[in-house]
């Protein structure tokens, strides 16, 4: 399948260097390997880790106030904070 992507000339130069070293046969093989690594990385991450990545990238939707979440544990006292 043909996938057209726009990447910087600096990155292309680095990929070409890796190809010249013999690590990859061509740019396609290098990019395919990078995509495989990317997919492997995200297939093992938790929803919390993925949400953190979205948050840090400013791409996580914002809604609600977590202070509304209160668990009923009245019998517990100050000791909880010292545990």
């Amino acid at each position: 399948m043909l996938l057209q992507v726009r990447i910087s000339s600096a990155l292309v130069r680095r990929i070409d260097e890796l190809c010249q070293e013999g690590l990859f046969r061509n740019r396609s093989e290098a990019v395919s390997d990078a995509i495989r690594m990317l997919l492997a990385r995200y297939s093992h991450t938790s929803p919390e880790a993925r949400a953190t990545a979205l948050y840090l990238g400013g791409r996580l939707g914002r809604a609600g106030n977590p202070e509304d979440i209160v668990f009923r544990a009245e019998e517990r006292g100050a000791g909880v904070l010292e545990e």
Partner: protein
Amino acid sequence: MSGLITLGPDVLAIHHLSLRGDPHWRDNEEALAKLRGTPKALSIYTLLDLVGMVSRHVGERSGRDLYLSYLRSEEHTILFPPHHDSWEEHIDKVMRFLARGLNYRDALEAMVIESTPEVELYLSWKSILVGRVAVRVQTPADYVSSARK
């Protein structure tokens, strides 16, 4: 982001775990109610602490859900520490805070707070932080009474 009030883990734990047996319960709730609707912050360390406490006393699912709720919150900003490239760099930075007599966990918190210029007040019941963090530290009770004046 300006004049941010940052909440400590003790303040949020008393609230979320509904620790009515804690002597600070009433003042803690009053301070959070007073701050309702205003932008606030908490460090990622505070949030992770909170997730651990909720997971232990309520359950894993609740801890994870709370984590996501804070990331999505409209009112809260999560403060992350500056990235460090090496352990040497981290030790170098954290040692300056440990030298003030803070434990490692409080030193991490102080590092985040002091690297965020917008933080003007840190709310916590921990008196050890007063004078050891270069940001004004108040208990929720003091905050409520100063807000009344």
